[in-house]
């Protein structure tokens, strides 16, 4: 009886009733919000007329914590920034500190870093594309891609013992050389990923349900993308030809033959296509890297920075003292005064570390054992800041693919 009355009430209501705007909270804990973020959408019918993005639910004082750690300890926190491609964070932070220290890694160390970075990049893109495809109903793609990601994470696990929070590098080098048979396993994984990518292309790229949800949705013009500081796949999908690996080459990227895919329309489909192509390019880099990797040391040969071999630590007194001098509280790597901004190409875009070393009152040598300030420039911060114009004037259902293609990672966004 009540239900009947209610339905009559709606049908007899004045036209203004239907036009009234409604506030809709999406998140903070919503299955389509990867991580915790809140979108407050003002809707008129099915359309989003205005919106507000609220972040900070995962803020855990990364920058403040780094100020109370030694240079190497801060690495543990960088793992938790972009937890899908943690190796890139490790490499970015370490290279910033190494720039302050004015040391360069031996070639083999640089190659290993490149390998780990590209593996992480592919796993990040697989997660992003897989998850956003799943939200549009393509659960198979999600499973295929997560399977691929698992193969990649197994490689990372074999190198450093962890799948997600890797801590795969150290200031001034790598903790150890590649394990035996690792490169053969890489070859196998590359071919597996190729198969998965071609399967997913078949499932998605011309799939009508997928294409209609993606094409011309969440469009960002090049001008807007620049104003919001978009980099990475989202920036390139909007036509900004900027890739740190090409424009400011670091590690050994300049030695390889690969291209940077650039989109035209800046919609969800372009972001998807750019990511798919980038994975193929990363596979190419991996192959060339595997073929060219030289022999030699993996860390700089400087006892003030690099830990001695374990046999020295346990075998002779110099090694033991060296180990203690780098590990004990109040000792460790000491970095000269200065400030440095070092960008690397993270999976989402330019991942920059702005690091300040400022000698404190206890310093006698003008160097510092702890960072004075560590600022991470998280790539997805800009995309989330620019999310408002991407979801305004589209339908409520379009929030899901648009938000998925932005690939927001709570860890690096909220720090």
């Amino acid at each position, binding site marked *: 009886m009540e239900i009947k009355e209610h339905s009559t009430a709606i049908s007899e209501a004045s036209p203004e009733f239907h036009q009234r705007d409604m506030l809709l909270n999406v998140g903070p804990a919503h299955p389509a919000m990867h991580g915790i973020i809140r979108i407050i959408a003002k809707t008129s019918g099915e359309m989003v007329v205005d919106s507000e993005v609220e972040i900070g639910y995962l803020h855990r004082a990364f920058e403040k914590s780094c100020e109370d750690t030694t240079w190497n300890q801060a690495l543990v926190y960088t793992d938790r920034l972009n937890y899908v491609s943690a190796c890139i964070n490790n490499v970015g932070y370490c290279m910033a500190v190494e720039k302050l220290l004015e040391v360069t890694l031996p070639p083999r160390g640089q190659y290993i870093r490149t390998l780990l970075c590209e593996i992480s990049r592919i796993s990040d893109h697989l997660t992003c594309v897989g998850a956003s495809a799943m939200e549009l109903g393509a659960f198979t793609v999600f499973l295929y891609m997560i399977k691929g990601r698992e193969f990649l994470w197994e490689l990372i696990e074999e190198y450093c013992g962890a799948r997600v929070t890797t801590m795969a590098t150290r200031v001034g080098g790598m903790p150890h050389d590649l394990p035996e048979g690792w490169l053969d396993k890489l070859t196998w994984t590359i071919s597996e990923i190729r198969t998965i990518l071609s399967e997913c292309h078949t499932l998605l790229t011309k799939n009508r349900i997928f294409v209609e949800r993606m094409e011309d949705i969440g469009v960002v013009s090049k001008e807007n993308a620049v*104003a*919001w500081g978009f980099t990475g796949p989202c920036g390139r999908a909007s036509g*900004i030809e900027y890739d740190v690996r090409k424009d400011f080459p670091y590690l050994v990227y300049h030695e390889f033959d690969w291209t940077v895919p650039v989109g035209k329309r800046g919609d969800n489909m372009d972001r998807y296509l750019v990511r798919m192509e980038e994975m193929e390019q990363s596979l190419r880099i991996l192959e060339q890297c595997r073929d060219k990797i030289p022999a030699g040391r993996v860390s700089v040969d400087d006892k003030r920075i690099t830990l001695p071999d374990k046999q020295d630590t346990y075998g002779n007194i110099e090694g033991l003292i060296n180990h203690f001098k780098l590990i004990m509280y109040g000792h460790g790597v000491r970095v000269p005064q200065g400030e440095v*901004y070092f960008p690397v190409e993270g999976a989402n875009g330019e991942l920059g570390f702005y690091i300040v070393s400022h000698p404190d009152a206890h310093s006698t040598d003008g160097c510092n054992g702890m960072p004075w300030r560590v600022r991470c420039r998280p790539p997805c911060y800009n995309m989330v*800041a620019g999310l408002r114009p991407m979801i305004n004037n589209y339908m409520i259902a379009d929030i899901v693919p648009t938000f998925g293609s932005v690939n927001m990672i709570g860890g690096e966004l909220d720090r």
Partner: protein
Amino acid sequence: MEKAALLETITALIPNAKVIEEGVDRPAIELPPAHLPEAAKLLHDTDDFAFDMLCAHTAIDRIDDGKFELIYQLYSTKFHHYLMLSVKVDREHPVVPSVSSVWRIAQWHEREVYDLFGVLYDNHPDLRRLFLEDDWQGHPLRKDYRDDFMLTME
């Protein structure tokens, strides 16, 4: 543009800009806070530099000098060059003009710096905390910040 040429052109155009030479890895200039808005507009609009992207904006607490150093990392998507802009403000009265009308992303960056350092931005359209709750007391990235939950080594 090459580093030397870039700095020369900038100092010719913005007479108040002072080139920073020590301890920095990129072309860097220092500006007095009052000249920030017009300098930002010049850097953004002049075709010779076209610094159309604000990569990062942050602050450093120079507590020994009683200053906050505000850092703006600029990038040009046209010429692929960088510039670091440094503005020092008094720690006691940290007020600077906002650049959010020049670079839109600065809206969020300035909210973040306000949240964590307590720097106030003039003419910012919506200066609220970004990460912390609205009723949070104090600004945690200040070096003299203390609260009841902090574990310190002293």
